[in-house]
C-alpha cells in the first residue's frame, strides 16, 4: 500500500531528441510524462480512455492515443508530438524555414479556415491530419472523415476542420 511513488528511470526518443525521465512512477501514461515531466503540454488529456483523440501523437509513424500508452513501454519508439511536427514536415527544407514558417501547412490551414475555436482538440487533430496526409495524400471525403473520427471537437461542428483539410490537400496537390 505505502510503496514509494517515483523511482523509475528511462529514456524516450521524442521529436528527434533523447529525453531522460527520472523519478517516475511506472503507472504513468505517455500523455502524463509528456505533459508533466517533459514540458510538452501540446498533447491534451480530455478522456483518458482513447475516445477523444486530444492526446494524439505519432509513435513509429502511427497515430496513437498517448493516454493509452504506458510511458515506460514507449522506450525505443520514435515519438513525434504536435510540438515536433514542423521539424518533421517534409515540405519544409531548412531550419531557417522552420523558424520563418513557425507552423506547418496543416496548422496554417486550421487558422485560416476557422477550424480553431477553444482549441483543445486542435493539437490532436493537427497530428491526426498530418498522419492521414502523409500516408494518403489524396483522400476522399469519406476517408478524411473516417481518419479523424477518433478526434472529438465540441465547438466547430467539424465543417471548418474539413475545409482546412481540403485546403491543404489542394495546396499540396498544386505544388507536386
Amino acid at each position, binding site marked *: 500500500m505505502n510503496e514509494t511513488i*517515483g523511482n523509475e528511470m528511462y529514456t524516450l526518443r521524442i521529436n528527434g531528441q533523447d529525453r531522460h525521465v527520472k523519478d517516475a512512477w511506472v503507472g504513468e501514461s505517455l500523455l502524463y510524462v509528456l505533459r508533466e515531466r517533459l514540458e510538452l503540454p501540446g498533447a*491534451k488529456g480530455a478522456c483518458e480512455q482513447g475516445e477523444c483523440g486530444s492526446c494524439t501523437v505519432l509513435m513509429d509513424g502511427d497515430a496513437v492515443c498517448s493516454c493509452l500508452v504506458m510511458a515506460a513501454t514507449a522506450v525505443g519508439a520514435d515519438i513525434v508530438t504536435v510540438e515536433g511536427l514542423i521539424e518533421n514536415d517534409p515540405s519544409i527544407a531548412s531550419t531557417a524555414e522552420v523558424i520563418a514558417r513557425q507552423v506547418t501547412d496543416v496548422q496554417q490551414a486550421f487558422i485560416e479556415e476557422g477550424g480553431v475555436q477553444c482549441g483543445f482538440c486542435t493539437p490532436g487533430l493537427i497530428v491526426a491530419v498530418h498522419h492521414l496526409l502523409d500516408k494518403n495524400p489524396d483522400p476522399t471525403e469519406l476517408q478524411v472523415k473516417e481518419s479523424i473520427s477518433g478526434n472529438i471537437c465540441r465547438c466547430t461542428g467539424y465543417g471548418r476542420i474539413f475545409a482546412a483539410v481540403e485546403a491543404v490537400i489542394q495546396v499540396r496537390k498544386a505544388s507536386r
Partner: protein
Amino acid sequence: MSTVKQDTRLRDILGTSALRPDGVAKVMGSFSFSSDMWAENMLWGATLRSPHPYARIISIDTTAALLISGVSAVITAQDVPGKPTYGLISADQPVFASEFVRYMGEPVAAVAADHPETCRRALAAIIVNYEVLTPVVDPELAMLATTEQIHPDGNLIRYQHILHGDPLITSDITVEGNYTIGMQDQAFLGLEAAMAFPDSGGNGVELHIATQWLHEDRGQIAACLKLPEDNVRLVLGGVGGAFGAREDISLQVHCCLLALRTGRPIKMQYSREESFFGHVHRHPAKIWMKHHATKEGKIVKVESRMVFDGGAYTSTSPAVLINGITHTQGPYQCENAVVDGYAVRTNNPPCGAMRGFGVVQACFAHESQMDKLAQACGLSPVEVRLINAMHTGDKLITGQVMESVAPVERCIRETDAIPMPEPLAANANVLEFPGGSGRTADRQNIVRGIGWGVSMKNLMYSEGFDDYATARCTLTNGIASLKFATAEVGQGFVTLAPQIARSVLGVDYVVLETSDTQIGSAGSTSASRQTWMSGGAVDGACRLVRERLFEHVGKLHNIDPIRLMIEHTDVIDTIGTFRISVAEASQDITLSETFEHHHRKTEDLDANGQGNCHVAFAFVAHRAVVDVDIDLGLVKVVQIATAQDVGRVLNPLS
C-alpha cells in the same frame, strides 16, 4: 513608428474575416490551457465523492489517508472557514457535504499530495460511514407535500404561472402531447482544471481557473474562504469550451482551501468521469403541451405544464424554468396561453446552464406540436410554421412586445430553399450508413426522415438582472490596450475586441491584457451575451478614448474637436484638409478610459407571468435530414440546413 499606410492590406476591422490572435499558439500546442499549468513546489489536489445519491454521513475518518507518505492535507466540511455553501442564485450547495449527501458524486473531502496516484490512494484511504437512504428521483413525486423534503429549503425550487389572454377560449382543432427530454451534458473538451497560489501571509489566494464568469466565482469563493474579495484574485486560465458547464462552482473552493491549508500551489484537474459528476447538466424535463388552432392551422391558444428536474441543488434552475415557460409559444403568434412551470429538487445530479438554457426543452415540445398541428390541418411542416410565424410588433405570452426584427418567416424560407441532399445511393459505402464504422446497419432497414425545428431564444439575462460588462481602453503611440474580465471560452471575443478597437480608434496594433478580476465584472460568457455586452463595453471605452484623442488633437492644431473623425488609420478634419495618423496623434501621450455597458432594464414576471422580462431575442430555423436504421435505432445525420438571424456579421469566419 512608420506612418506609411499599407492600403493593400485588409485591416482586421469589424466585418472582415479577422483571424484569431490565439490561433497560432493553439495549433502549435503552446496555448496555455488551465490544465497546462505547472508551478515549482506544487501539489496535486483531488476530491472524494459520495457513491450514494442520498445518505446520511455518520462519520468521516481521515487518519489513514494522512499517514500516507506524500499526502500534505485532507480537508472536509469542518475545514471550510467561511460560508459552508455556495450557489449562483441560492447558496444551498455545500462546499463539502457534512450531514447528508444529496446526489451521487457530491464532494465529501479533498486531499493534497505530491502525485495524482498518491491522491488516488489517499482518497481510497478515507473512511466514510454512510447510512444509505432511499433517494427521491421522480420530480412529480418530489414536489408533493407528502414526500420527504430532502433539503432544508424544500423540494420545490420554483413555481411560475403564465396566464395570457382568454384562458377558456377553444377552437376547431386541438393537438396535444407529452414530451420527455432527457439529461444532457455539455461535455466541453478541456476538463475542469485550476491552479491556486496562496499568498505568503495566508490571507489571500490567486486562482487560475477555466471559468465563464471570473467575478461571480470570486464572490462565491471569497465567502466560503472568509476572505475579503480583494484578497481573492482570479485569473482566467485557458478555457477548453464551456457551454454552460463552467457557470457554477466546481473545484474552485476546494483548490483554494488546499492551497491555503498547505501554503503551496495546488493543481487540480478532473478526469472525464469526474467531470460528469463535477458540473451541472441540462435539466431533464417532462412537458405536456396542447395547442388549440383554427382549421386553417392558425394557433389560437397554447396550454402547457412543464416540470424541470433540477437535481439536488438550485444552481440556475429558477432562471432555466423561466426561459422554458416564457418560450412555450416558440417563434409563433399566440394570443392566449395558460402555462404552469415547476423546477423541482431531487436526488438526481444537479442541473443548470447548458446552451439554450431551458429554451431547448420548450422547443422540443412546441416543434413536435407544430408537426402534429400540420398533420391535423393537412398542411406541410413548412406551411404551418409560416402561417404562424411571429413578426415585429407581436405580443408574447408574457405581454412583452417583440420590438426587434423577428425574421422567423425569412429563416424558414431560406432554410427551405437549401437543396435537399441526394438519396442514399444503392451502392453507398457502408461507412455512410447509420452506425458508420460500426458497420452494423442493414441497408434494407434504413429509412430517411426530415425534421424541422424553428426557435427563438432570449439573449442576455432576464427578470431585472443587470448583467453589465466593463472594459478599459488605453491608447498610446498608436497602440491600443484592452482590459476586460471577459472569459474567452472559444467563442472568439479575443478576435472581436481588437476588431472593435481598430474600427473605432483607427489603430492597427491592439494588445489584450490579462483577463482577471483586476477590473470590473464582464458578466458571464453565456446567454449569447458577450459580443453585445463586453463588445459594447469595449466599444464604449474606445469611443471615450477617441473623444479624448480628438480633444488633444484639436487643442494642438487649433481645430474644434467636433470636426474631427477617424478615417482608416488617420484622424481627419471633416471640413478641412488636416490629416494626422492615429499613431502620430497619440505619440507620447496615454489616454485611458473605462466603460461599463448596461443593457436596457427588464422586469420581474408577476403572478400571471406577465412582464417585460427579456432583453432581446434571436431566431433560427433548422431542417435535419437523417437516415435511421429502424431496427437498431442507429441514426446518421445526413444534412442540417439552417438559416439564423445573426444580425450584422462582425466576422464571417467565426
